[in-house]
């Protein structure tokens, strides 16, 4: 049978059209299926914008800080590395380092000597998210700046981008510094070559629990939804004078400090 070019083109274009419609509709059906398969946990906590208020006046002894830091580091299998390659999720520093733009002459001795609890600020405009080339760091709809360690390539742009030094790089295998017998078996560790930081306890919020440090602080740290006018954090913010770290860089941190 002899075919003209015209006939061939007709048959070929019709077959392409048929194949592509099949593929397209198949894709739509698949997307609809995954939409129902995955749901938020029933007892999880949800918010428009998670935020934390730390009452720095209530933290007096080193034990007050240690309780929070230990709770956090134990829950997330954070290694204790006793040198400059340390990994920090929750740590402390002095006023002049925490609020370098907000120093004043002749400050009260109490303020100068006070330690401040530091963590990832879960910014409204997080520079770490903007510079991450692999989207390993991303901002969730509820304001939590989270990390997918599977995607982290260890480029450390986020560490350069973060104005708060809230990110740590795993120079070596962190498991060398974790007692694997004492580990929290419900949470992973990290591996060599990834950056890590505080995650606002997303895995605990999904189970309906408050963050580990909030629980361990016994009322010295407040945590809640900033978009809800009735929430505890909003009430605490309304009643107290609070500041945030480095306001001039415009990151809009989600961690507030009562001074």
């Amino acid at each position, binding site marked *: 049978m002899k075919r003209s070019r015209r006939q061939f083109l007709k048959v070929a274009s019709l077959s392409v059209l048929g194949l592509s419609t099949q593929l397209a509709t198949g894709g739509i059906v698949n997307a609809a299926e*995954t939409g*129902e*398969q*995955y*749901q*938020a*946990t*029933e007892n*999880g906590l949800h918010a428009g914008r998670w935020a934390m208020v730390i009452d720095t006046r209530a933290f007096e002894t080193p034990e007050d800080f240690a309780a929070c830091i230990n709770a956090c580091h134990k829950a997330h*299998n954070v290694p204790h590395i006793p040198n400059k390659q340390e990994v920090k999720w929750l740590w402390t520093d002095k006023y002049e380092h925490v609020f370098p733009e907000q120093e004043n002459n002749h400050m009260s001795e109490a303020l100068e000597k006070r330690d401040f609890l530091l963590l990832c600020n879960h910014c409204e405009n997080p520079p770490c998210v903007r510079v991450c080339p692999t989207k390993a760091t*991303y901002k*969730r*709809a*509820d304001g939590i700046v*989270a990390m*997918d*360690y*599977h995607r982290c390539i260890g480029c450390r742009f986020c560490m350069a981008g973060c104005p708060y030094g809230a990110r740590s790089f795993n120079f070596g295998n962190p498991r060398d510094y974790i007692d694997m017998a004492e*580990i929290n*078996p*419900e*949470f*992973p*560790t*990290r*591996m060599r070559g990834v950056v890590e930081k505080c995650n606002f306890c*997303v895995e605990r919020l*999904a189970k309906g629990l408050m963050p580990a440090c909030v629980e361990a602080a016994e009322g010295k740290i407040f945590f809640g939804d900033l978009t809800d006018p009735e929430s505890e954090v909003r009430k605490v913010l309304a009643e107290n004078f609070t500041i945030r770290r480095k306001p001039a860089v415009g990151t809009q941190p989600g961690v507030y400090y009562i001074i």
Partner: protein
Amino acid sequence: MYNTKYVLLGLIVFLGLFTSPFWANLGSASYERPKLALPADQKECIESAEYMRAEHMQLLNVWRDEALREGKRSYVASNGKVWTISLQNTCMKCHTNKAEFCDKCHNSNSVNPYCWDCHVEPKGNQ
């Protein structure tokens, strides 16, 4: 065709070499699926065994993205049962024997997933 003798000879040698893996393995036993240690107290996985065998890697990939990025940590299986999305706290709670379950099949198929660089192996394995 010029040099038919040499060309044909060369073709035969090439074909022989190219198919040599088949000849070398002709007599040996065929691949057998490794015998895996299945959870003793559980009858069924979240989906059918056939589906899990073929698709568990894709499923875990979607699980990770849905849980971490979308905040959706519940998986509704095709039979309607709801599972918590977690490798460590859901999968490995039943499949406690990593060496006789994960590793055995991965080893015989020469794949080296790096799950356990970060995720914690179940205690039942040690």
